[in-house]
């Protein structure tokens, strides 16, 4: 009798391995430890055992960032190249991208809600809009800083305006364009943590699922920052690989 009672107690205990007050699915891979029960600063065991719950959101997060930054880069670059030849467009475009940049992301998501509904696009549209200002401004600055001598030399060689842009101006403006791209990537990774509010998922999802569990908060924070650093590094390496002469010059 006593053995049976003890056994049923153990079964009940195993079914509810979680610390009191935490969601039932909280420790689905992990025994309740003093660290989890006491909500310690960072419970390594729990983090290692529950890493799988961050993998899906991580790649979704990357998807949101990739779509937004690529779309923003294409749009901003096109706007910059066009207004480089039509200078009257520069002030209104700077103003318009600046206004978009000022709208807080939470407000932007919920303003789009009646139009696009919950989902990926409601997150991607604001994140794309935020990248425009920084990439547009840096591209314009890069093109403006191309030395006049280089352009004159190109013209002297008989280049058309189109050739000049593609073979002289753009390569020389690349460092500043890439600098803008890097800022856009890093800040988009950080802001995409709020994409869950738009129903798009990402690393904000696991964060908001247990917003008081410190290990969870730190996991999401570290994974977000890690993604920003990795993507930043990839861009830096790609630039070095594609334009070795810049490295030689700065040395």
């Amino acid at each position: 009798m006593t053995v049976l009672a003890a056994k049923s107690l153990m079964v009940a205990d195993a079914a509810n391995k979680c610390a009191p007050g935490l969601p039932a699915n909280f420790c689905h891979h992990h025994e309740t430890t003093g660290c989890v029960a006491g909500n310690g600063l960072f419970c390594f065991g729990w983090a290692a055992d529950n890493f799988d719950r961050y993998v899906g959101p991580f790649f979704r997060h990357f998807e949101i960032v990739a779509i937004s930054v690529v779309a923003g880069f294409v749009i901003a670059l096109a706007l910059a190249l066009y207004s480089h030849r039509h200078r009257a467009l520069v002030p209104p475009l700077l103003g318009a991208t600046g206004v978009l940049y000022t709208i807080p992301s939470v407000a932007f998501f919920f303003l789009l809600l009646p139009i696009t509904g919950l989902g990926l696009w409601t997150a991607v549209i604001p994140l794309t809009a935020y990248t425009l200002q920084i990439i547009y401004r840096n591209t314009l600055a890069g093109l403006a800083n191309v030395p006049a001598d280089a352009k004159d030399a190109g013209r002297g060689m008989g280049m058309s305006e189109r050739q000049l842009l593609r073979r002289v101006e753009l390569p020389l403006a690349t460092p500043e364009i890439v600098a803008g791209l890097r800022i856009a990537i890093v800040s988009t990774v950080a802001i995409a943590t709020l994409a869950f509010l738009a129903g798009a998922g990402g690393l904000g999802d696991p964060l908001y699922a247990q917003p008081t569990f410190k290990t969870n908060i730190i996991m999401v924070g570290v994974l977000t920052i890690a993604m920003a650093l990795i993507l930043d590094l990839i861009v830096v390496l790609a630039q070095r690989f594609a334009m070795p002469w810049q490295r030689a010059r700065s040395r």
Partner: protein
Amino acid sequence: MILLASIIDSFTGAFDFILHSRQAVGSGHADVPVGGIPFIWTFARTQLEVSAIALGGALAVGMPIGLILGHIGKGEYFAVGFGNAGRAVPEIAVVFLLAALIGIGLGNVALALGILGLPPILTNTFVAIRQVDPTAVQAAEGMGMRPWQVILRVELPLAAPTIMTGIRTAAINIFATATIASFVGLSTLGDLVTGTNVYGTDGVVAGAIVIAVLAGSIEAALAGVQRLVTPRGLKLQRAARSA
């Protein structure tokens, strides 16, 4: 056409929510009046208050550090790296982590927001001071100015526009993130946008409109301040350069 009509409908509903009081959505809160300008103002005031405290704190800490480091020309790696690192930090994680570590409440949220506002202020102040024309500083030293006089009367005015750019970035970041503070129990405008089952879609869109308009107003006001603090000499110099 039908889609357009429904979009217009939800925005007119939102404006009605801003202007007029109405019954809450959902059976549990049906007798509670929501909406109307005084109702929204209670949320907006909390958000503006906590943002102002946070910005004040970030200025009080970040500007002196940036000024001194910039003046002595040391710590470039720290000052610039701090600004870059600040961009990578997800705001919502900082707000949640500080709430978990030190508890909720206006003071604690203000601390979290202040930390988030620090990098752009510190970095821009440092960079702005470093960019000041060294001949102007040498002239001031030659006139016998003491270091603090050089900082306050030469470097600070000449650096003012760039410093203000940092303050604008910080202010907008802080105000935007204060919306999220509703997740940690502070009744900011985030309450409206995340409270569909009490305020309805009208309330959600109304909250979003109010947040966007306030953020735009803050940005416009600070842009005005930036013009005011830009020394006349700098404006003339720029006009001459672009002409």
